[in-house]
């Protein structure tokens, strides 16, 4: 009897494999029979119901669509009229692909009242919603409650996120060539259109909400700028004000946070500075060239604009700042936390610190599980501090006042423990080191 059952299962399996194989061959031969959708527009109504929330399927759909159109236009894959002497190319499958199949966790935000933690994924363009208590000591993946992802979302290299906990909305800015900010309600998921989309200057990284003034501020890396919009701004709406100029001492700004209690705005800077264009350099009295400043946390008046100076700066060797990324404000305890990417650490400062000051606390060391920290969020209600690791598939949770080389309270994994993190962020160039047989990939 067991033999007969085994034989039946084998037959059934073989039949399924045959059917699958036929489908595969048919699919490859006639891809145009299979509809994958066409170019998705953020504002397109007919894209809203597309239930494809799988990034890889999205990529294949895009490739197939483009391929069909290419074939229809008669542009051939490989050979020109010089076919006799041309090296043969075509639709060649790669021998190897270094691609991260998992999310790269970028920024983090916590809504303790909703018991939710939101994390942005700049690898596959997504926002993950987790229960606030997700994670633990398991080596397995923590399941999100919801995921917003897919072509209709318009998200690509999502960087900073911010929460409006009153109106229950998530604000996300796209770095690289996304040049936009999307706003989603808390309760949506899948491949859904944003509630609002706003065009922003190139190089957006951080986003911060000001519920008192009903404004949203966005840091822009390339032009060393902070732009401030109406909270409800959408489409091509112009900013209310722009903070930019040499006196601002903004230099490759990243994380940004608004302090409504003191009407201030804090901005993390990497220190790279250059005029944006040749015309701009010439307008300043001739070419002066770029320069490297020390990294800093600059504080501005909430209504700062134009070439306004910072009220104060945390900057200098004592600060330990090293490629500061995300910022978080703890208004209750009058502190700020800094995701200090360059030294795999979290720095805590007094909110009103200035000058070359040492941090109040530093979470750093091999027990912390901090690796490439990009985002940080303080949850005062639960006395916790969240950190997203770009160089690991984890977010780690500490006691708010953790200090030194301490283990996290919980680890939230989006890949099984030990899964390498590729860590790409749209590698725009590569090089081959022929001496070492290595591929060099910058971000």
């Amino acid at each position, binding site marked *: 009897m067991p033999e007969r059952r085994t034989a039946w299962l084998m037959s059934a399996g073989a039949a399924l494999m045959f059917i699958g194989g036929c489908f595969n061959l048919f699919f490859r031969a006639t891809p145009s029979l299979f509809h994958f959708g066409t170019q998705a527009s953020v504002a397109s109504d007919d894209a809203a119901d597309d239930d494809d929330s799988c990034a890889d399927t999205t990529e294949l759909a895009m490739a197939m669509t483009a391929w069909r159109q290419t074939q229809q236009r008669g542009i051939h894959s490989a050979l020109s009229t010089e076919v006799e002497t041309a090296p043969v190319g075509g639709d060649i499958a790669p021998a190897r692909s270094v691609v991260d199949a998992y999310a790269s966790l970028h920024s983090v935000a916590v809504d303790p009242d909703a018991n939710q933690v939101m994390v942005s994924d700049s690898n596959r363009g997504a926002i993950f919603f987790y229960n606030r208590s997700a994670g633990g000591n398991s080596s397995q993946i923590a399941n999100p409650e919801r995921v917003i992802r897919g072509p209709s979302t318009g998200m690509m290299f999502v960087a900073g996120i911010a929460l409006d906990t009153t109106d229950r909305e998530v604000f996300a800015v796209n770095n690289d060539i996304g040049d936009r900010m999307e706003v989603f309600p808390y309760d949506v998921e899948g491949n859904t259109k944003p509630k609002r989309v706003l065009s922003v200057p190139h190089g957006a990284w951080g986003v911060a909400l000001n519920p008192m003034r009903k404004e949203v501020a966005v840091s822009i890396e390339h032009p060393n700028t902070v732009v401030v919009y109406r909270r409800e701004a959408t489409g091509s709406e112009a900013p209310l004000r722009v903070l930019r100029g040499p006196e601002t001492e903004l230099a490759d700004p990243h994380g940004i946070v608004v302090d409504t209690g003191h009407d201030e705005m804090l901005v993390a800077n990497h220190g790279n500075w250059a005029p944006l264009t040749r015309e701009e350099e010439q307008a300043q009295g001739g070419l002066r060239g*770029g320069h490297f400043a020390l990294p800093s946390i600059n504080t501005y008046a909430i209504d700062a604009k134009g070439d306004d100076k910072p009220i104060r700066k945390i900057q200098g060797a004592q600060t330990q700042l090293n490629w500061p990324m995300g910022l978080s404000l703890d208004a209750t305890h009058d502190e700020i936390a800094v995701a200090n990417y360059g030294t795999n650490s979290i720095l805590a400062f007094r909110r009103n610190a200035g000058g070359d000051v040492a941090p109040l606390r530093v979470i750093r060391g091999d027990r912390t599980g901090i690796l490439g920290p990009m985002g940080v969020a303080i949850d005062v209600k639960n006395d916790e501090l969240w950190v997203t690791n770009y160089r690991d598939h984890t977010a780690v949770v500490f006691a708010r006042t953790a200090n030194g080389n301490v283990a996290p309270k919980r680890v939230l994994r989006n890949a099984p423990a030990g899964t390498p993190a590729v860590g790409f962020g749209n590698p725009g160039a590569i*090089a081959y080191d022929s001496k070492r047989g290595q591929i060099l990939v910058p*971000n």
Partner: protein
Amino acid sequence: MTQPRIAVFARLANGDAAPTRLITGQNTLLGRTIHGLAYNPTRDEIVVPNALADAVLVFRAAAAGSEHPLRVIEGPHTLLVTPHAVSLDLRNQEILVASLTGRRINVFRWDANGDAAPVRLIEGPKTELGHVVGLAVDPERNLLAVANTHEILIFNRTDNGDVAPRGRIAGPKTGITDEPWQMEFYKGRIFLAASNHFHQNLYDGVTLRPDATDVPDDPWLNPILGFMGIWNITDNGDVAPLAMIRGPFSGLIHPVGLALNPKDGEVYVSDSVKNGVLGFLVPQFFPQEKPNVNSDGRQSK
């Protein structure tokens, strides 16, 4: 691009692979928007621009961690403005740098350091330089190929000042539509990552364009597929590539980075949408030198 670094992978790395080495941290002076990278086998160095500080950094090729560059080209005399692409002329010992918003090509000695003036500068209206993110030099034929806004421009290698390109590879047959990206050169042929994404921004810097209306479509959903293409550097006009890698099974959607490994017959291409690096085994793309054969059929020494 949200975080600056250079990651080093073994040639045979595949799938979810961790870098074997990282160059990262404040001390490296790296910035984001690294659109150029070149390895110098003669000096065993790597050259990388920092577009956000108007600088070109030169590292030991074996650099690791928060290592400071060996040399930093930066300052008003460099005339660098948003340097994006770099290329090396190993024969003539030069570093070529394309300034994106500066719309110029700066040429430096390969040992330049500090506030060094370029030895040559291609710029001006005749050059037609616009969005330049790729460069490749052919020292044999003394030609310079430039990946320009919608085309490939060819200059003489030693051109200087406001000079018109001597050749142009552009048009529908080329398949290049928008922002051709990194280029490499090998034995008379240009290898190009033709991104074909369609990047529109409603802002000119931080100023909203007067004609700004709706938010543009996601540039990576442009249905015109990108590809890796090869041309002869002597091509001119609307010339189809000699060969290309393109199509759904290639995995290429909007490729941007490109590197060559002729010894192993491989081409490496980075893709924006895949957010990955794909390795193709294509020895047919690397024509071997024909051996000199004696009348008796034996290979001459």
